[in-house]
């Protein structure tokens, strides 16, 4: 009680100047970028939805008139157990002119037998198998090599899709001939499985669903998820398909963007994926993702910052936005140092206030953005009790993982040693600095 009284006295004693001085990190870096900017952009998107309705109707009509063939490529290793459910969810699609190409990247389980049976029964159009594992990029490229469709949709085998997901992800291509790739809206299927999965569901909603609406509207959408992304085949062919991962989803998006194509996010193209259910598994996944951010953005595609002939402001801003994350992460440590040095005696109160600030902004943001959701098949109330925990999850857990990943990649180029990709290819990627 004594602590709460002191805390109350502390909070009431802070004036505006003091508030900005002590909570500058929240005010300038978190609140402005991830609350105000997102809110303004998404609000604008929501308010202009009526104008988009006509455009969408026309594009849908054009899609069904033209009936272009869509090549769905699903690369993976030991994914046999998921393929049947995937094929079934595709059979339910409202858009049916597609070919399903499964690329088995050296599976050593029952995948070949399962896929052969599915092919025999007409669920799969083409099943290609590499006896020796070559990595996800080469598997996807093999699918691309034999794809015949005008559009290529890249899927993960362990995902499933809303009935109109395929139709919705293709429609943006008919808005504008310059749209080269469209990202789908990835949501969490197993959000009830564990606390870890629930927190990720909130994160996906915030950063993927809402965050990508915002970045797409601003023209700086940067990562088309490998779980659900569509491309013009011509664009993919021009960039030579996927390069060695990890992080090939972001890499291919940048490559397509560099050619001058527009990249769109389609919130109505809903895909459900299973996320890691333990914090230990999540660490592994996020280390891989965060390391690839450094590798591809700061190393392979650093030319985006250079004012050369391929320079585009949208690419530049997109990269600045990503780099912002890196800067933000460093700034956070600066902020911690600032607090320790200058406000050491108030640290418990500052920590409490920070948690309150973030929780409040999370709740407001979550409730407001929930109103913008196009599909309301998730219970909003379910996630509300978890929002205070998100402060720890976002602010500390993910931030520490990110820091470790950045250090590992910047100092040791650890992504080249990641077993996610076979060493025989990573070795070459490292030598070529890609």
């Amino acid at each position, binding site marked *: 009680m004594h602590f709460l009284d002191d805390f109350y006295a502390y909070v009431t004693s802070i004036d505006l100047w003091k508030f900005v001085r002590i909570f500058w990190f929240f005010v300038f870096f978190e609140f402005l970028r991830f609350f105000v900017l997102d809110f303004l952009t998404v609000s604008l998107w929501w308010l202009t939805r009526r104008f988009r309705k006509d455009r969408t109707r026309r594009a849908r009509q054009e899609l069904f008139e033209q009936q272009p063939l869509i090549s769905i490529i699903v690369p993976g290793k030991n994914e046999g157990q998921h393929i049947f459910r995937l094929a079934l969810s595709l059979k339910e699609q409202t858009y049916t002119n597609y070919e399903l190409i499964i690329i088995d990247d050296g599976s050593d389980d029952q995948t070949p037998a399962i896929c052969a049976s599915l092919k025999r029964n007409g669920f799969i159009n083409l099943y290609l198998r590499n006896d020796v594992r070559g990595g996800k990029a*080469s598997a996807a490229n093999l699918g691309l090599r034999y794809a015949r469709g005008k559009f290529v949709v890249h899927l993960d085998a362990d995902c499933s899709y809303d009935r109109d997901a395929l139709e919705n992800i293709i429609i943006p291509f008919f808005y504008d001939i310059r749209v080269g790739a469209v990202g789908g809206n990835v949501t969490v299927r197993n959000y009830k499985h564990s606390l870890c999965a629930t927190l990720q569901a909130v994160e996906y909603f915030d950063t993927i669903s809402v965050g990508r609406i915002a970045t797409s509207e601003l023209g700086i959408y940067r990562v088309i998820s490998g779980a659900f992304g569509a491309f013009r085949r011509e664009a993919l062919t021009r960039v030579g398909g996927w390069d060695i991962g990890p992080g090939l989803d972001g890499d291919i998006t940048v490559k397509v963007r560099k050619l001058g194509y527009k990249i769109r996010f389609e919130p109505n193209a809903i895909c459900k994926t299973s996320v890691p259910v333990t914090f230990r598994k999540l660490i592994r996944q996020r280390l891989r993702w965060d390391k690839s951010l450094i590798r591809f953005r700061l190393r392979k595609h650093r030319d985006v910052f250079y004012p050369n002939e391929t320079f585009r402001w949208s690419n530049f801003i997109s990269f600045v936005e990503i780099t912002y994350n890196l800067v933000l992460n460093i700034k956070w440590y600066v902020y911690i140092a600032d607090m320790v040095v200058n406000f050491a005696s108030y640290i418990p109160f500052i920590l409490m206030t920070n948690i309150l600030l973030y929780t409040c902004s999370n709740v407001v943001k979550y409730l407001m953005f929930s109103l913008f959701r196009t599909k309301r098949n998730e219970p909003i109330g379910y996630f509300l009790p978890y929002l205070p925990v998100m402060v720890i999850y976002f602010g500390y857990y993910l931030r520490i993982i990110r820091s470790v990943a950045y250090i590992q990649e910047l100092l040791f180029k650890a992504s080249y040693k990641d077993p996610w990709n076979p060493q025989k290819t990573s070795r070459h990627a490292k030598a*070529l600095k890609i």
Partner: protein
Amino acid sequence: MDTKKENESKIEAKDGRISYGNLLFYYIENNSSFRIEELMGYDALILDARDHDFTRLIIKRIRTHYNPEFYLKPVFLLNVKPTKDPLINHLHDGIIYSFDQVPELANIVRQIFLLTTQLDYNLPNSFQAQTMKKVFNFMHTRETKTLRPHIDVNSIVGYTYPELSVSFDDREEAQTLDILEWAEKEGLIWPDFHERIYLCNNCSSGFLSYREVCPHCQSSNAKSEDLVHHFPCAYIGPISDFRNPVDNTLSCPKCSKTLRHIGVDYDKPSVINHCNNCDNNFQDFYVKAKCLSCEQDIEVQYLIPKTIYLFKLTKKGRSAAVNGLFTASQEVEDIFGTIRPEVMKVMLHYEVERMRKNSALKSSVAVFHLENIYELYNRIGAKSRKNLIIELMNLVRENIRPSDYIGLESAATFYVSMIDTDPAAAAATANNIERSMQTAIHKNFSAFEASIRHHIEPLQIGTPVDAQLQLLAKELFN
């Protein structure tokens, strides 16, 4: 003794007859005309076997004959050329290179004669049993106890059991497998695995061409290529994507680097096939079997699997030749308008009871036996056999009254009840039946002369029906 020796040592050859001691050999020169009936007065046959087809023809004519006098006749080959034909190699009794060797044949002929005298000549009641009895008779006289399968390009299934298969046309070889299966079930032979074969599901041919075909259009016009994975840029595609047509080097179409060392900068993780017919790409061919006999294209899972066994005669099989072959199985399924013998016995029993009540009533029963009909059955195959029996039974029905019934004992023997018909009237009806059957058979199979016998007995009140039918059959076959 001296005189006997002297007589035996003298070989005389004249007009196709070779005599040695008290044995008379019939000599057939290559491609000379031959009537099998001429063999009747001879102890054995010497065949000039220079011509393979002629030799095969003569051996087949002799061994397929229904009469033991002919099909058991010792056959020796002269001037035989090496051949892989099992029907020639396994159905003769010896090879000689000149008539000087004829004395060496005498003991063989005598041994066959001796064993022939031990045989039982009663004909079993079914087609399968009669066919196997012939085989057992032959094996007994040749002192063999195994039915060995031989690879034979003339046989439609690719394998032949010469002793049995000789009775069938090459295209009917699948029937031999059915008969052997029957014999195995009857406990006459014991199987020993030899080989597994697959037959066409349309014509039972074993001559199948297994082909890798496109799973989409079933064409075998496809091209296979290695898939090449270039490590540095993750490009993967068929090797033709990498091949430089000018200098035949391999360079990556994505990053233009030259491929240098397999396993270091590239590998070949798989193969891809391209169908030139429908442009389909695929990795796994479908395997289909094309029947070279009927040209049907069959998916391999629909082929008929058959096991080829080496069969050993069981004790029952060994004694079948000497003690006769008795089997319980029926060879004919229900033919419309006929009844089974056991049903017939019941109905005749009712007729006898009816006659007992009214002594003025007179009924008869007749038995018909088509003596050489199996010779024709062998020739026309299983399907036509059934059709022929149906046709013959229709003819019988046309000659009898609706109240009469036909009891089909086997494909060669049947009974006809003649209710309220005395033996004289029954004899007239039976003659009509015999005549119309003979005419019909002759009309359809002009080269075949059917030998038909019948016997009629009046139904007796005091004797059990079983005994009356046995007596009827005995009278017919005596």
